């Protein structure tokens, strides 16, 4: 089991790099959905073979919401707004990849000084979770399209959720419920906002919004 867990964690880290390097929004949506599924699988793998039914339920629920419902909403928003690619991001894709490596290094450095219950793999999971959250933050800051920023928000949520999973082993349910509710509301609001922005204006480039005058 530990080997499987390590491979899961590494794939999670790689998905973050895919988010950083990909310019296609459809690919990014797919990646975020895959990440949600993998975090669910990791949650089960960490607690294997003592999986409680409450935890199983919350995992299934969050995977359904984050890997089926939200991607569906986002794909619809992409179609409505006719924005299939992130063009001219603030930080280029190659540079994003390299910065990602540095961020990962920092995350490993930070989490190595934290006290974690359980074995070494839990510490690595913590680093992966923190890295996911930081990647989400990076996407929010360095991408221009509103949809990519929403994706960054979702990624950050994935990370925070996993962070709670690694830390509060017994209170996972509480953390997950709270975060999930937050995100659902936020993405609904943002989805509607993107839809309306694209109806009013012919682009969803957030930089142009800041140039609006009263």
């Amino acid at each position, binding site marked *: 089991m*530990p*080997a499987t*867990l*390590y*491979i899961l*964690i*590494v794939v999670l*880290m*790689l998905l973050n*790099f895919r988010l950083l*390097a990909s310019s296609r929004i459809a690919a990014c949506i797919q990646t975020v959905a895959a990440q949600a599924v993998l975090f669910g699988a990791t949650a089960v793998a960490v607690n294997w073979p003592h999986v409680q039914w409450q935890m199983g339920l919350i995992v299934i629920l969050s995977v359904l919401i984050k890997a089926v419902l939200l991607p569906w909403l986002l794909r619809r928003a992409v179609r409505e707004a006719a924005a299939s690619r992130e063009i001219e991001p603030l930080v280029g*894709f*190659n540079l994003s*990849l*390299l910065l*990602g*490596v540095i961020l*990962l*290094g920092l995350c*490993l450095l930070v989490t*190595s000084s934290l006290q974690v219950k359980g074995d070494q*793999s839990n510490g*690595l999971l913590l680093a992966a979770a923190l890295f996911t959250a930081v990647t989400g933050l990076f996407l929010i800051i360095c991408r221009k399209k509103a949809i990519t920023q929403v994706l960054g928000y979702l990624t950050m949520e994935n990370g925070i959720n996993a962070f709670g999973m690694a830390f509060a082993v017994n209170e996972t349910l509480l953390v997950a419920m709270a975060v999930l509710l937050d995100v659902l509301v936020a993405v609904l609001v943002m989805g509607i906002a993107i839809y309306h922005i694209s109806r009013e204006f012919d682009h969803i480039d957030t930089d142009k919004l800041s140039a609006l005058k009263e």
Partner: protein
Amino acid sequence: MTLYSLIHLALALAGAPLLLGIVNRIKAKIGGRTGQPLLQLYYDLAKLLRKGAVYSETTTWVFRAGPLVGLAAVVVALLVVPLGGVPAVASFTGDLVLLAYMLGLMRLATVLAALDTGSAFEGMGASREVQFAALAEPAMLLGLASMAVLTGKLSLSAMLAALSPAALPPLAAAALLLVGAAVFIVLLAENSRIPFDDPNTHLELTMIHEVMVLDHTGPDFAAIQYGAALKLWTYAAVLSGIILPIRTNCPWCDLLVGAGGVAVVVVAVGLVESGMARLRMLRVPQLLLAAVVLSLLALVLVLR
């Protein structure tokens, strides 16, 4: 060095051209064609060796030395490469650096010979070759470095022989997958296979490696083609040791497992070539950068 190392060397020297035949055969089968014979490269080499060489008057000894230096360098590289659990003919501390720079020397010889012709077209190919090599080399070296950290050995033979599931921490599987993926990308780039370069295009503005060897003829061109086949074997042998970490105690089984790994790698190359198109030139550095990231991630994992 054991008797089995010599068997590996003989196998490599005799069997390397077959690898390209297998790749071409797989591409043909998937494309619905009959394809060229498996032994086509042997026929080509025999034909080229019978012919005379033509040298342009503007070239110097650098141009004539290029193919020979390249072939010699790759043979030296082959001497330090183990096949899975079978040790290499020569092994010493730090021979992985020798491997990387013998392949570098081979590239340098090809590039200098290309520049020596004075053709603008070949200069362009040379420029692309070194640009991509500068990105592929760190990926390879970082990958090998992470395996050195993982096993605590500094020579390729000892390093690959120490890779067995029982003796390594659970982290190793993840690290090996990462390094394997990175080395595979480097293999495709360095052997000018499809996502990076199309070995079938001639006289097109998009090619990298083929353009540099346009002016070589006869035995010189045979040396270049044979050198390219040996280079593919070198990378495939290293990759085979990484992706099939099965070490038995019987040398014949190790030899068989290693050769099986080489076959798996070559089939994978054929499948990638059938399924993918060439990348745009601008996207090539990004894929190589991804290989660097994979290697770095492996290194970070094992260093923790």
